């Protein structure tokens, strides 16, 4: 076989290969177009379902009194007004309350991440007696209907004491209610708002991570604590972000513990939101419920905005999270 023949064959192979890739390329192009149409339809539909009520709330928040009773007004107010926002701003004491609330939820969230990931790691990677039963108890803490734990928790924090020390010192038991301290304590001990779920998420994540990472660390002589803080937590970034998002939102939106521990309304923005209508009705003497509701709509918009901004920022890390764990894996 001479060189020319080889070249000829080579050229032919090249041609067929080119042909095949061209065909498969057009095929996959059609496929991807179909996929994106399908995706667009589904996502638009779902977004519409979700956004419907939200758009309604936001557009209503600009309504003036005359718009709400005008049957021809739909979505777009005829006499748009910022009056509702002015009222909601004043009655929510927006900036102060927001500041307090954020300090509260951010610090709680940091504790949640730290404690829950630690406990989750313990359950995921170590063997100890009664592990299964104890983990069952973690699940029980989230299954248990909230109202069941109200009375004992109330009693506990109403007369708070550690082994009688406080009573011995001050002569009276501490009353931790009317503040956020009980929530900090409960979070610190892994039994905060939906902590059980976070522990569960972390445990499943850690179990899903390859063992080789830790083994390599162990061979390097790293202890379990270092392995956990230095390696596992970093690798569980998607889980950390997920838990951070949930914890922030749920704590932000939580009414149950805010009420149970009678946290002051001036510290919890969402709690204040839930009493906004009554405040407008009784303090501002707006007796018409449809008008006072407009202030609530404005309030809801004001309350949703900051948390959406935070989520927007965090979801970027979601994407970065992929690349990082991709490299490690």
């Amino acid at each position: 076989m001479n060189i020319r023949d080889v070249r000829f064959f080579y050229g032919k192979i090249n041609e067929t290969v080119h042909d095949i890739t061209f065909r498969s390329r057009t095929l996959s192009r059609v496929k991807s177009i179909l996929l994106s149409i399908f995706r667009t339809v589904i996502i638009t539909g779902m977004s519409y379902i979700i956004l419907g009520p939200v758009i309604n709330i936001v557009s209503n928040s600009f309504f003036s009194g005359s718009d709400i009773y005008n049957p021809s007004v739909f979505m777009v107010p005829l006499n748009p007004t910022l009056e509702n926002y002015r009222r909601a701003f004043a009655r929510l004491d927006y900036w102060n309350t927001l500041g307090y609330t954020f300090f509260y939820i951010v610090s709680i969230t940091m504790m949640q991440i730290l404690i829950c990931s630690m406990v989750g790691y313990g359950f995921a990677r170590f063997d100890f007696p009664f592990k299964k039963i104890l983990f069952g108890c973690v699940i029980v803490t989230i299954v248990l209907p909230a109202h069941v734990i109200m009375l004992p928790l109330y009693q506990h924090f109403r007369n708070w004491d550690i082994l009688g020390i406080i009573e011995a010192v001050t002569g009276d038991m501490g009353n931790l209610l009317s503040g956020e301290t009980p929530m900090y304590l409960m979070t610190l001990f892994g039994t905060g708002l939906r902590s059980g779920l976070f522990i569960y998420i972390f445990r499943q994540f850690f179990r899903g991570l390859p063992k080789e990472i830790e083994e390599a660390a162990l061979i390097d002589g790293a202890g379990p604590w270092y392995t956990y803080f230095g390696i596992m937590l970093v690798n569980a970034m998607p889980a950390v972000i997920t838990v951070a998002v949930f914890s922030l939102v749920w704590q932000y939106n939580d009414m149950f513990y805010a009420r149970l521990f009678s946290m002051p309304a001036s510290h919890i923005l969402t709690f204040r939101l839930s009493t906004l209508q009554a405040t407008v009705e009784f303090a501002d003497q707006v007796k018409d419920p449809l008008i006072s509701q407009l202030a609530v709509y404005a309030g809801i918009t004001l309350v949703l905005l900051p948390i959406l901004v935070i989520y927007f920022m965090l979801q970027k890390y979601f994407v970065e999270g992929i690349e990082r764990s991709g490299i490690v894996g």
Partner: protein
Amino acid sequence: MKKIKLTLRQKRAVTGILFITPWLTGFLAYYVRSLILNVHFSLSKIEILKTGGYRATYTGLENYRYALLEHATFNQVLADSLRDILIDIPFIIFFSLFMAILLNTKFKGRAIVRIIFFLPILMGSGAVLESLEQATRNITGGASVTIAELAKTNEVNIDYFLYLFEDLGLPEVLVDYITGLVARIFEVVRASSVQIIIFLAALQSIPGSLYECAKIEGATAYETFWKITFPMVSPLILTNVVYTIVDFFVNSEVVDLAYEVAFTNYNYGLSAAMSTLSTAIVCLILVIVCTLISRKTFYYN
């Protein structure tokens, strides 16, 4: 003194216990008492004293008997709640995994769409819902008779869909199931958004190298899904199933009923019995579902 020597295994066990200590303390301090008190209440008749506080008189299983045999609605509500849980779970899991995969692909405006799918978590619970409920209550002048009527306008008109499906000649049970879901589509979407986010996180923790391998080996998209994506997210399928069951349960009518019995009817004993019964049943369901699923769950090691 003799130095206690621990084997490596025991050492690991101690470290493990140290890792879970914070939670264990909290559980013992805050939950064990609640559980005991709840069982105690459920076996007693509770009376509020004239000076505040309460007196519990032991009545045996009377509260359980009353809840199961005499209470007008408890059985029905419990059965309905459990049925809802079991029916909706497969769909919600399937739906949220599907949406997560869709949202994980690259397309324009992805950030916005992710925010939209995040909204139901905010809208569906806690303060926002409560303030809206308060508003409704005020408009109807405290009339609980009309809440259902006001809510009506938010529903999707299902008659049309029903018609459509019947034309296709699908079995009636399936049609009912699907139309039922469509009618509650907002509820379903709302109930899935947490799961979608959990799945998204799971999808993103799959190493990209696995997909590259699959590509080189020439695997089809179908194979890639079943051989890589599905096993890799399977630990979180379990999480999501558990979350879905829990979420459905804590928002279910049976829990509402128990709450109402305690907080508006002041029958603490009966309420505790109801809570104990329903929690026990849900825990049983969780155990069964978890054992079934964990058999199929793939862990990296």
